[in-house]
């Protein structure tokens, strides 16, 4: 099973102190009031995903945000998935629909 997480807010089960410290060191931020984690620093993103996957004991991927339409989408929809060195990492991208939709692209260009 693959879990798709939103990098801006996601929940994790309670973890021991050492694991929590490791998560914060790797770049997570924790909102005590809401009990939600978010990604603050992306320098160690691969190790962070491995650690979160280990905690949840399943494969974890992060959703992408399309810079054209603003919608969230998973990397599985992308045909360049295999060639991408940053697949499943929570970075901005262009969703497959916006990439091939000429009309939407021209509307996007007008914003420049």
């Amino acid at each position, binding site marked *: 099973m693959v879990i798709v997480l939103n990098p801006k807010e996601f929940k994790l089960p309670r973890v021991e102190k050492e694991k929590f410290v490791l998560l914060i060191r790797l770049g997570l931020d924790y909102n005590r009031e809401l009990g939600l984690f978010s990604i603050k620093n992306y320098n160690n993103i691969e190790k962070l995903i491995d650690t979160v996957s280990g905690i949840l004991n399943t494969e974890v991927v992060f959703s992408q945000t399309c810079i054209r339409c603003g919608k969230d989408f998973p990397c599985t929809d992308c045909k360049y998935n295999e060639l991408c060195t940053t697949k499943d990492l929570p*970075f901005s991208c*262009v969703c497959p629909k916006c990439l091939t939709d000429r009309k939407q692209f021209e509307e996007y260009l007008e914003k420049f």
Partner: protein
Amino acid sequence: MSNDLLWVEKYRPKKIEDIVGNEEAKAALIEWLKNKRRSKKAVLLYGPPGVGKTALVNAASKGFGFSIIEMNASDSRSEKAINEVAKPATSYVALDNFSSANKGKGNLLFLDEVDGIAGNEDRGGVGAIIKIVEEARVPVIMAANDPDIDKLRPLKKVCLLIRFHQIRIPLIIALLQKICLLEHVKAEFEALERIAQNSKGDVRSAINDLQSLAEENHALILQDTMALTSRNKDISMDDTLRGFFSTKSVTEASSLLSRSNVDYDEFIMSVGDNLPRRYSDPEELAAAYDFVSQADVFRGRIGTENWHLLKYFFNALSRASAVAPESYKPFELISPPIRIITLFWTKGKRTMLDGICGKIGAQCHVSHSIAKHDFVPFIKIILQNTKSSSLIPWFKFTPEEVDFLLKMNRY
């Protein structure tokens, strides 16, 4: 605008918003520049070439009204040169700041390609930069492709690190589409797709390829892109390992290995270390180790000249990654290989033992190897029984060497 201009220059980002990708890195740099009470006085931007590090610094300095003072790889960056150029720029407020017409925020020192500071010409460069960072009154930004080299280690301690990633293919295609529209180039989507794929995340090379193929005819079809030579980008050991274990098929793993430039001996050791984390089923693990051993045989046969056997090595190793693709779950990788870590940690002990064997060899006229295997175990027993043995002065052992011999478990 001149028609002779390179498109890379013509479409160089003028504003921060124009820079494609790496939104998180952009946000981090902007936040640092906005913050007047910075916890770190300098920033080190790192990542592969052509991803917008220099462009971001130029666009951000313009956006925030800084006067940029740049030193790059073409300048000599010895201690003396850095102190001559960078020190005045970071210590004093620029005179033109006092002019009423100038509403700038002062200087910003930008040292590009700091990982290229090397050799006798740039002697003392890193030390001088650290001193400047500690004393600087203005923002100092540095950029590097590889921040993991030893000489940059002290520099990393005084910097806020911001990582840049390769630009994703869809983002490069989007940028190429924009350029085609502005240059009135009729381009097939598949052709742009191929240029973007070939660029391996390097925007600069993608724009150069587009210009070389489409500038003359203002049209671009897929066939035109066939002449593009593949750009081999180095994939790091960690990325190769991660990709290798998450592949779904032998072909995918094989293609990944052929694209990576990792050291094959080190890679095979790392695969061996990580297999127990990848496969929990003993039968799957045994099958995977079997393939690794086959790959190791091929690696031995390749040696330094039989590179035509490389495909068999790739094939055998790739089969180890695809024993049970459906059971894949991400795990924390062991890297570098345990063997190399062990060698690193035991270097002091091995040097000590080598010295002892040398002394035994000199007195008994035997080789190091014989001294190690036939003499050391017995000398250890003798010393354990009689600590003030006459052997100690005869072999000229130091107290540390005697202590080492008494405490050693194995050699």
